[in-house]
């Protein structure tokens, strides 16, 4: 059943990618991330501890460990070139991570090694940003309301869980990546990596609770390829 969905989805994407070929340099990889099986039922977040946040939601928002969409699509999956592409210099633009309504926006933030990371607090309460890296340097900073954004950098590629010590439910992820070829699946679970120079690549999809999957692809010229990922979902 799910497979069938995935195949259909794949065809749809093929059609779509035909248009995408219009891109000037390099090839394009597009695709969709889906799951099979029954994913865990996300529970509503109980914010009763922090009324200033709780009152921002008509109904309690759901936890974001596993976010699914129509057609078994899977959100918050970062798809990137894990091998084959040279490391890129960090872009000058900063990646911004916002704390709003006692949640992280976005839930998963992908950015490059040495790229500036800007963390802002739009809430009326103090937050505390505590990323838990394994290879990078660990820090743990509080951000009272009305204080300037925190600016940080990471010099090693890593998937870093982020938590707020003050609000236990606040969890997010930093995906620190070596090169600029990456995308994070949003609603619909689709992604697209453009401007890939010809070459042989390992393309990897990573999800915070479903782990990662990799596929080998070879891009020649400006061709458009489709790569789909299917994760196994567990009910618990």
């Amino acid at each position, binding site marked *: 059943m799910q497979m069938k969905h995935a195949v259909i989805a794949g065809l749809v994407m093929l059609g779509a990618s035909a248009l995408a070929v219009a891109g000037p340099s390099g090839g394009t990889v597009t695709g969709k991330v889906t799951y099979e099986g029954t994913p865990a039922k996300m*529970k509503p977040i109980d*914010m009763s501890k922090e009324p200033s946040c709780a009152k921002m939601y008509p109904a309690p928002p759901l936890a974001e460990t596993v976010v699914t969409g129509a057609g078994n699509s899977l959100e918050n999956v970062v798809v990137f070139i894990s091998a084959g592409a040279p490391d890129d210099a960090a872009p000058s633009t900063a990646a911004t991570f916002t704390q709003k309504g006692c949640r992280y926006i976005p839930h998963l933030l992908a950015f490059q090694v040495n790229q500036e990371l800007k963390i802002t607090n739009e809430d009326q309460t103090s937050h505390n940003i505590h990323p838990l890296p394994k290879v990078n340097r660990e820090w743990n900073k509080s951000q009272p309301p009305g204080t300037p954004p925190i600016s940080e950098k990471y010099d090693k590629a890593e998937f870093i869980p982020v938590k707020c010590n003050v*609000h*236990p439910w606040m969890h997010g992820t930093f995906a620190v990546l070596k090169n600029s070829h990456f995308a994070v699946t949003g609603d619909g679970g689709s992604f697209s990596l453009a401007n890939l120079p010809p070459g042989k690549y390992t393309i990897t999809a990573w999800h915070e609770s479903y782990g990662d999957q990799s596929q080998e692809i070879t891009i020649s010229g400006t061709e458009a390829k489709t790569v789909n990922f299917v994760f196994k979902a567990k009910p*618990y």
Partner: protein
Amino acid sequence: MGKFFAVVLVLVAMLSAYPIIANYFPLPVDISTHGHLIDSQLHDTMLEAGIAFIGAQLVLAYFLFAFTGRKPDAPLKNFPGGAKTMVIAAFLIVGTEVLALGAFGQKAWATVYFVPPKADALQIQAQAEQFAFYFRYPGPDGKFGAIHPDKIDEGNQNYFGLDPANEVEARDDIVSGELVIPVNREVNLMMHAKDFGHSFYVRELRIQQDFVPGLDLAIHFTATQIGKFEIVCTQLCGLGHYNMKAYLNVKSQDDYDKWLKEQSQ
């Protein structure tokens, strides 16, 4: 100078006592079955301590007033009775006070700590962690799933480290950030600390008990009034200590049952 000092002391004594006498800082409403014992104990102590406080300050003031700036040849006198009276007075007044308060005071303490909870008391588990309280209800099966610290996944609302995949008891456990209890029903709160020392303090319940990591305590109480009250942490537990709070939501039995049903969906 001595006269001035005396006046200041009198003012200090009066102004310090006034807010208490005028009850500017009333105790919060007592919604527990044992609270009145503590309140009356507090009242008695306040009375005795207040008298001692005002008395001592006024005596000090009077002696300052009377015995400063005297002529160098003014006769020196000794307090009638001398030290012996002082010692005897101290032993009599304070001693009896000590015994009285000590003895009566234990009643409230005993009702909180020495009387075991009733068999039918509502079993709820409270977990304190940086920086929130979470409360767990056993669910329809009346059994708590075991706690597996390694399974804790707060991003996914699994605060207790339950393992529903392998344990049936855990599947129907209800976890809430709010302590919802029925009115006039004894609650036996089993206290578990996830990380550090915390404390469970509800003014209106006249209950304060530390969460001790590695040592699961239980405290039991009965709420006698419907309403929402604040649960706060009184044990320094880290950077969010000031913000570690939850609500005690006392509902009528029907509302409580309704709430329970909603939760177990």
